């Protein structure tokens, strides 16, 4: 380097740091939102609120893991909310009949089977993931409605363990973390440090190139969608514990937010870019935003408009911050 090439300015250096560590600006934005919330509603940011926010964000983040992982390959899993609902409903209705462990096992198996069906369609029949998962969601919800007619009078019971996980607190923090922390660690480790994780990015980036390098993409996709189904099933169990009502549409309202959490967290729907770390922050951002709007005394229409505009502003800011370094 010659004298002509003066070192980068401090601003550019900060920019590059942000670009290399995209989680940092995302966390800063989250902190900014929390500060805004505290200004709008003084005193709201307390430990109880924090525990509450984490509790609500966990199932959202877990369901968004399904979206993140599938989106890395350029896919999507629109059946995640349905699978979670089915898993929750099956657990609650089967527990009085066969006991909690067996009920949970059945519920998770059903989730895995739906995931495998998705995987079969996407990986082997090459159906577009959006259509495949939308299709299985329709089919599965039809099956759920048929099933529920047979268990109207059997009563429901939510396993105590799930209630403890969903609503209990330890040292002021929600017990859901006992499930989520290992889960998140595992997912992030898998996505960064395992061959399978790398292949997800590879398929999303250029499937033909991955093929030329010897990757059999059907194996990856089949495993991926099965995994996604299993994660959705697990989320359903946790959500059952959180909400404590086995509704027929329990986790369906999470479908769109789970996609939103992933994209706000920096994962590209066209594949090859992003990660679960960002998704977790994305889920927290959405949850904090939800609280902010709940507590705001304005007409519902205004709330939705604000919600949309803030999401847009946060993502635009995020892109500005990380782009500096490019």
């Amino acid at each position: 380097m010659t004298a002509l090439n003066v070192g980068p300015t401090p601003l550019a250096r900060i920019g590059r740091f942000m670009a290399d560590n995209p989680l940092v600006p995302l966390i800063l934005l989250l902190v900014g939102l929390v500060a805004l919330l505290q200004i709008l509603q003084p005193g709201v940011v307390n430990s109880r609120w924090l525990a509450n926010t984490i509790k609500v964000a966990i199932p959202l983040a877990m369901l968004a893991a399904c979206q993140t992982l599938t989106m890395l390959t350029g896919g999507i899993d629109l059946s995640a909310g349905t699978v979670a609902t089915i898993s929750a409903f099956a657990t609650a209705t089967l527990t009085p009949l066969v006991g909690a462990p067996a009920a949970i096992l059945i519920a998770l198996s059903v989730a895995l089977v739906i995931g495998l069906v998705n995987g079969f369609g996407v990986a082997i029949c090459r159906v577009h993931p959006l259509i495949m998962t939308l299709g299985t969601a329709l089919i599965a919800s039809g099956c759920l409605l048929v099933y529920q007619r047979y268990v109207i009078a059997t009563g429901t019971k939510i396993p105590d363990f799930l209630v403890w996980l969903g609503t209990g607190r330890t040292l002021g923090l929600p017990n859901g973390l006992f499930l989520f922390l290992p889960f998140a660690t595992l997912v992030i480790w898998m996505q960064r440090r395992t061959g399978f994780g790398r292949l997800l990015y590879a398929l999303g980036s250029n499937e033909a190139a991955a093929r030329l390098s010897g990757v059999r993409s059907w194996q990856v996709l089949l495993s991926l969608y099965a995994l996604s189904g299993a994660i959705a099933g697990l989320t359903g169990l946790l959500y059952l514990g959180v909400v404590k009502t086995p509704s027929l549409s329990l986790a369906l309202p999470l479908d769109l937010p789970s996609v939103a959490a992933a994209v706000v967290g920096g994962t590209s729907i066209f594949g090859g870019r992003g990660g679960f770390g960002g998704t977790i922050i994305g889920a927290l951002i959405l949850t904090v935003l939800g609280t902010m709007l709940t507590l705001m005394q304005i007409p519902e229409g205004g709330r939705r408009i604000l919600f949309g505009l803030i999401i847009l502003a946060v993502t635009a800011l995020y892109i500005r911050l990380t782009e500096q370094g490019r």
Partner: protein
Amino acid sequence: MTRFLSKNSRTVGLAALLALLLVATKLIQPDFGASGLESLARAVLPFAFATVGMTIVVIAGGIDLSMAAMMAVASVTAAVLMEGASDGQAAIAVLGVLVLGLVMGAINGTLIVLTRVPDIVVTLAMLFVWQGVALLILNAPGGGAAPWLRDLVVGGVVLPGLPTALTEWLPKAVLFLVIAVALIWVPIRRSRLGLMLYAIGSDQLAAFRSGIPVGLTRIVAYALAGLFAALGGLSVTMGTGIGEPIPGPYLMASVAAVVLGGVVLGGGRGGIVGPVLAVFILRLVRMDLTLLSVDPNVTAIIEGTITVAVVMFGGLLAVRGMQK
């Protein structure tokens, strides 16, 4: 001819499937005829407009998740403006709603270009914004629609000079759809602008380097989607006579129809005919399931299976076409 067939194998396949379904419907319900077609066409209308709008943005390499929400804004605006209005005022209101659609779409597009945030995030955010706007305009179903507007899509076509029996089987709603699409999309498709839309969807960088104003073209794509959303919202109001602030199930339906119709998510490939045929097929399947008095919960299962099966079959056709 063979080249045409292999290039359009998807569309031809869908048309054949539609014909097959029509025959099946006639077998299920022997008195299925002009009135059946007519009600089918009216049901298709909002879905078709949503799908056409979605097709255009998808071809241009984007996606518009705010489609149904924009339809709701158009629908409530039209209903509020037309309630108790004279025919002349109602006509102005209709024009105003179409302009509103263009403006909403252009806002979506401009935000995408200016913020450089991915299309899916911007339109997801705008989905909430337009929902909010619809609620602010009308917080519960209400408003009205001018009778002449509602008559525009009711019944069969009657052309002066031609025997009624010859034209009557063709529902006015189909004619309305065809005319609207032909007036807006066909001239664009044939112009350089149409190519530009395909070009930015196919390869944005190559398009930019070929001297195409990429940002502007994207805005145009979204504005067109907004215009078709307005037409969709208007057709909801035409059918129901009111405006509903809650968006109907048009978003997912239109994305599904776009993919079923052979348009590639990611852009650059496909046309408008396939997705519109797909819309007709999906509506007709629903009609047949009702006619057969299938258990409603099983209906969902069948609809899901058919959707997936059509895509699998379409994929097979495409592979065949490539091998030729």
